[in-house]
């Protein structure tokens, strides 16, 4: 246990901002939490509108041009955000270190490519149908990988998932129908043409792809939020906190871990299919282990277990190499060092884990103690009793 948890607070429960001393930035979450619903919406709607308007505004300081096309850079951010949300289900909520997430991403990409690219010998279907199909296929793979391995202890699981990610990449190289480095050209895209007869979802046109990805991300965010505020999300957090105690309290741990794995896989597959559609080309070069670690860095950096945090982390990890192109070559070095420094000085990431786990929580807490729950936290990376001494 950390020192903070061995000394229980003796003060009254009415500490308004338990985050004092950590600065206004980290206290924002608690302030937000104590706002009434209408006010929260009044803030959220303009923010969402702004997010959608970004590629059109192309704001001077934020823009990544001339280095990188700004809408495409934004699509990259949105894609990373989607991936981070998916990986966060596995790592942040259920506490399972998955280093092979890129494997699911790759499978999603290949599903889209195999079913839409003219290079593929398979029958072809409209691109949008590949999105749910990619999710279904990756879920099956998640099940195949998870069912035997989720009984393993955490660090073994990490290595096995790493192996899985690598196997997917190797198979893409070895298995001839997957065309290795040659890959698949002209992967499909959503239908529609503009007034000049060009496809709206062209490879070079980032804006519609960005909007599509943001929309999907928001939907996924809602659905994942639903899970979080249900017995499923509570089971995940319970497993993360103390797996044995969770099982003894009646949580079917293996089943819920498998669900976390499968749901994370589905989101990874979805983002993979989106990625394949946007860049229009899939080969074996984009799914290596460093990419997987980059995904993990997004989650850990932002704050695993915190949906806003992981989106922030995804933004940092994907935006900085695009904005400061001269840094791009060093991104793995930078994020590798960042992970070390972070674990030493701020293991909870930029924003600590926070989750609301009750569907009627707001009402319940107000009724019982007259104030919202305590949200701020140190880290989701703490399984009590699982320490290295």
């Amino acid at each position, binding site marked *: 246990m950390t020192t903070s948890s061995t000394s229980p607070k003796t003060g009254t429960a009415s500490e308004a901002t338990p985050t004092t001393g950590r600065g206004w930035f980290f206290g924002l979450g608690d302030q937000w939490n104590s706002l009434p619903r209408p006010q929260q919406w009044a803030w959220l709607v303009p923010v969402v509108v702004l997010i959608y308007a970004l590629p059109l505004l192309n704001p001077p300081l934020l823009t990544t041009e001339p280095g990188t096309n700004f809408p495409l850079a934004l699509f990259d951010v949105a894609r990373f955000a989607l991936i981070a949300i998916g990986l966060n289900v596995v790592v942040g909520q259920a506490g399972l270190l998955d280093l092979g997430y890129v494997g699911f991403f790759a499978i999603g990409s290949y599903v889209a490519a195999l079913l839409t690219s003219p290079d593929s010998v398979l029958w072809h279907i409209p691109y949008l149908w590949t999105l749910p199909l990619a999710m279904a296929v990756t879920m099956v793979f998640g099940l195949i990988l998870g069912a035997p391995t989720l009984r393993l202890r955490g660090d073994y699981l990490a290595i096995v998932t790493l192996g899985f990610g690598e196997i997917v990449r190797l198979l893409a190289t070895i298995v001839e129908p997957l065309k290795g480095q040659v890959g698949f050209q002209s992967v499909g895209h959503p239908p529609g043409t503009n007034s000049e007869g060009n496809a709206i979802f062209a490879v070079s046109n980032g804006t519609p792809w960005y909007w599509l990805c943001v929309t999907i991300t928001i939907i996924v965010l809602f659905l994942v939020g639903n899970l979080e505020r249900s017995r499923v999300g509570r089971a995940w957090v319970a497993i993360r906190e103390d797996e044995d*105690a969770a099982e003894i309290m009646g949580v079917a741990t293996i089943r819920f871990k498998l669900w976390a794995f499968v749901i994370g896989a589905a989101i990874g597959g979805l983002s993979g299919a989106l990625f394949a559609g946007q860049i229009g080309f899939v080969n074996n070069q984009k799914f290596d282990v460093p990419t997987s670690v980059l995904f993990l860095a997004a989650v850990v950096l932002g704050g695993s277990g915190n949906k806003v945090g992981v989106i922030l982390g995804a933004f940092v990890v994907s935006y900085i190499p695009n904005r400061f192109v001269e840094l791009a070559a060093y991104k793995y070095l930078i994020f590798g060092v960042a992970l070390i420094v972070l674990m030493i000085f701020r293991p909870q990431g930029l924003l600590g884990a926070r989750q609301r786990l009750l569907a009627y929580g707001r009402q*319940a807490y107000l*009724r019982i103690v007259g104030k919202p729950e305590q949200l701020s936290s140190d880290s989701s990376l703490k399984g009590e009793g699982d320490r290295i001494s």
Partner: protein
Amino acid sequence: MTEPTGDDRRDPAAPDPGTERASGTERIGRHAADATPAGTAAHTEGGVELDEQTREEAVQRADEHTEHLAAEGPGLVPDGEGSIVEQLAHMTAEELAEREAEVAEVVAPDRDIAVEVGDTLLSMDAVTMRFGGLVALDAVSFDLKRGEILGLIGPNGAGKTTCFNALTGVYRPTSGQVRLEGQPLGRRSRHQITRLGIARTFQNIRLFGEMTALENVVVGADARHRTSVVGALLRLPRHHREERQAIDRAMALLEFVGIAHRAADKARNLPYGDQRRLEIARALATEPKLLCLDEPAAGFNPAEKDNLMGLIRKIRDDGYTVLLIEHDMRLVMGVTDRIVVLEFGRKIAEGLPSEIRENPAVIAAYLGVPDDATA
């Protein structure tokens, strides 16, 4: 889960059990005094005895609340102004006693209340546990009867914790069987055993530190629920119903164990004593038939121990069966109905506290040892 039951399963007019609790004929209920054995004064703790009619009214209000959960939202909120905690602070002793009856009703909403007292709930049948060459338990047999508080005692290393672990399914016995209501636990996984109706607390507290107290208890309540992942994803009606029920019961449970004011705090920030109470609330939330407490008074001062004794009795009076492992002899003698004594993995005595106190074998094995536990 099923809808809250109506009055049909309850028998408020059960005969006064008095001292014949072991006869196997009478029924117990949440109506505390009905099941209180002679000599223990569970319900006078608050200083107020409720008359039958007032209690009936309280129970009825609780039932109505449970029925209207969907409309009212979770939480048994009194009629006054402010949150539950604020209102509790301003209640008179009589109001508190009435409130307690109401809460106790929500805590145990649809338990099989009209159970036979004294029939066997759980039986250890010649359970032997061997670790390598070490025999930790040697053919231990005893029964737990419905509605009793059984104490399991013994000197250090006597096999209490092993016995406890065998009984709660953490260990599988080398030979022999543990049966709950005649069903062998067999090779069931631990969460299945919880669903069969055995809940436990931990000697070294194991709460979900990053969850609030309320969320901790709701995790326990989830054990009885069946919302699927798809149901939760799409927020189907069952999810809403179960979520309301779970939170409602969890709120009542926190109040029942006396830490309602901590509901919104993270478990790891609770004071030590409140953490122990929270563990009990979380275990009760799984709607167990048998609640196993592993040294619940460890680290408590005498006043806290007295409070805990009151709580344990209250739990039993609410219709639960309790197994208690404890070192503190005053607490064990004061609260249990029956005691089983282990030494070197063998059962050396079993009987009423008064019998155990005078049993020469026990005195030799345990009480005779100059140990601060006997103080």
